């Protein structure tokens, strides 16, 4: 296995394109190295993107943030402006693993690992985030919900690498939240994840996006759940409709982490609870 650490995105894409065998991007490595150790992955080339200056920083503000693909969770947590405007995205990023894992893991890695249970993906989808994809010859921007196509698979071409994540302009009176259910208080993979992002106008929900994780092969954007609360002050009836819509959208599996029945039920519970937090953060009063 070769190890390369290029210092610009183009060079990374070129290395990936030139490799005849299996080439993989190494960001935080918190998933990749575990799989390599288990013998599930045997790459011929690792392209370490942590030496690419552009990918190591968080830029922007109200008009939109750009988070570099190699920024570790701990730095996302330390970014005060980001945490103020996008608390849901930040808390989702902070939920990935322990403090030790936070020192390495990245949200782009969390996305590209393509696990149905990834914590940041529902939060990013709810936020309306996009990713900047760089290939050997061209760049493109893709909505987060279009990146993962199934468990372990993405829409990225072989020579493509994600350079950054872009969060949209933040409107006034907006708030987001992400909640996940895990059996312990830490260190588990989400059994269910729910993210809600909403904006208010005169105390009424003007726009909303609701996304769920770990309840289907990919994270889901649940429009019916958002529709349930748009135009409301998040009254109990609206919340109940949202919860029902969340549960209805689920298409989960039975596995070692949870049952179909459990996930379906708890998706509604978490959707409701996340909506309440987001509403509160947006300055809403019930």
């Amino acid at each position: 296995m070769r190890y390369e650490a290029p210092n610009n995105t183009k060079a990374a894409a070129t290395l990936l394109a030139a490799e005849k065998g299996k080439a993989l991007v190494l960001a935080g490595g918190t998933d990749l190295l575990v799989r390599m150790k288990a013998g599930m992955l045997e790459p011929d080339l690792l392209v370490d993107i942590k030496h690419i200056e552009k990918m190591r920083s968080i830029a922007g503000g109200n008009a939109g943030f750009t988070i570099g693909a190699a920024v570790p969770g701990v730095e996302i947590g330390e970014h005060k402006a980001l945490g103020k405007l996008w608390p849901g995205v930040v808390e989702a990023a902070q939920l990935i693993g322990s403090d030790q894992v936070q020192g390495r893991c990245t949200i782009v890695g969390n996305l590209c690992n393509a696990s149905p249970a990834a914590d940041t993906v529902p939060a990013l989808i709810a936020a309306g985030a996009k990713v900047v994809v760089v290939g050997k010859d061209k760049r493109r921007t893709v909505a987060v919900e279009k990146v993962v196509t199934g468990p372990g698979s993405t829409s990225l071409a072989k020579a493509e690498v994600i350079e950054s994540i872009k969060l949209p302009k933040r409107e006034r009176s907006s708030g987001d939240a992400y909640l996940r259910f895990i059996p312990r208080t830490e260190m588990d993979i989400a059994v269910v994840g729910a993210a809600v992002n909403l904006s208010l106008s005169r105390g009424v929900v003007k726009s909303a996006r609701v996304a769920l994780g770990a309840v289907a092969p990919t994270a889901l954007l649940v429009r019916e759940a958002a529709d349930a609360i748009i135009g409301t002050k998040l009254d109990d009836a609206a919340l109940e409709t949202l919860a029902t819509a969340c549960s209805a959208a689920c298409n989960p599996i039975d596995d070692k982490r949870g049952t179909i029945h459990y996930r379906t039920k708890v998706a509604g519970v978490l959707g409701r609870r996340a909506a309440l937090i987001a509403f509160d953060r947006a300055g809403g009063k019930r």
Partner: protein
Amino acid sequence: MSGAHVSTTVNGDAVQFACPNDESLLDSLRNRVGLTGVKEGCGTGDCGACSITLDDRLVCSCLVLGVEANGKQIGTVEGLADGDKLHPLQENFIKHAALQCGICTPGFLVAAKVLLERNPDPSEEEIRYALAGNLCRCTGYDKIVRAVQATAKDLRKKSKKKS
């Protein structure tokens, strides 16, 4: 497996080693640098026994490649004491019986040190969540949390005196 020559700094000392590209930094530190205080409990980032600092960030050395350490600053449990003077955390772990078998202790000490540098006055809850990445099977964490609380108190007293 092709390999790499790595120049790094471990506990303040310049260190060089050669390793295969797919070797974890944990294995490099244990088998090539000889720092067996860094422990492997799982190899998957779930137990924290291999905790080190990498450029002052807390990480699991099993989730870092040896080759990634090139040009970095590494801190391990072996670097905690200042000569024959133990770090206050080390003192308090002994004093408060915060270890039984001791295999998790190096990881806890490194993680707790990073915590107290970031947050000199953590609540019990903050301590518990900050140390959630370090598994201990012997103590039920009770005396570990108490040792960290005692250290935080000691260090705050000390910095008050200084200022």
